[in-house]
């Protein structure tokens, strides 16, 4: 079985479904036997959601949008 540090190192890729099948099975096996790493995995999942939720909060201010649209309008016509 892989060690805790090997499992923790791969946790995020595991949660993102980016691990190859063989490595995923090894992490699964470890999580099935290690309570502490299950806690690490649950927290990593919370941290992922936290980052993704904050990404949704960034809205372009209308004044910035207008200035950037003005930049686009000022671009020359290319023949």
């Amino acid at each position, binding site marked *: 079985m892989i060690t805790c540090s090997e499992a923790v190192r791969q946790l995020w890729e595991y949660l993102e479904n980016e691990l190859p099948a063989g490595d995923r099975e090894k992490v699964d096996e470890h999580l099935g036997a290690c309570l502490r790493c299950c806690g690490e995995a649950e927290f990593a999942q919370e941290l992922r959601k936290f980052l993704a939720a*904050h990404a949704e909060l960034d809205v372009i201010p209308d004044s910035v949008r207008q200035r950037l649209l003005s930049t*686009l309008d000022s*671009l020359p016509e290319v023949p």
Partner: protein
Amino acid sequence: MAERAAAMGTATDSEQFRALAAAELPKLYAVARRLVGDEAEDAVQDCLLKGFRGYRSITDPSAGPAWLLAILVNCCRDRGRSHVRRPDQVELEEAERFSLFRTIADEDPFPYSDSLHLDFLQQFGREDLHAVLLSLPEMYRAPLALVHMEGFSTKEVAEMLGAPRGTILARLHRGRKLLEKRLWDYATTHGLLKEGPR
């Protein structure tokens, strides 16, 4: 080129580029905010000008959004390189050993909480997280933001940043460890661990 002309009707290159960029502005700005903070507007301006100059090289219109985003990321990298304190080897080694999960459990900052770890994260407002993200060196911040906030795969980010996927995976790991450590440091130095409403 004929494919693009067919897809875009009779619109000129300039018109096509304006339509593409206008539609992508919200996304470009949001990504730039995470990568360069208050310089986001300037980074998007840079991106629009560079994109306009290179738009003729695009043959497949459906690739336009990803192409423009890759330009933005590079504009942000140019801006983001200079400001941030790079972690020294000692901090990187400390971060590698650091576990935010264990630290929160051990330090128990909210003794009356029955959802300690979640409560810790909920202390961070949008500007707090921005500040922590912007404290990370660009080489770690960009993969973190693009994968974990924008939802790109590590393969897509590797292409965007022009680095092997293995390098991106290594930077993501190190970046997450640094993020964990700096979230804790920020919380302890900015009064986020006091009980009660902020």
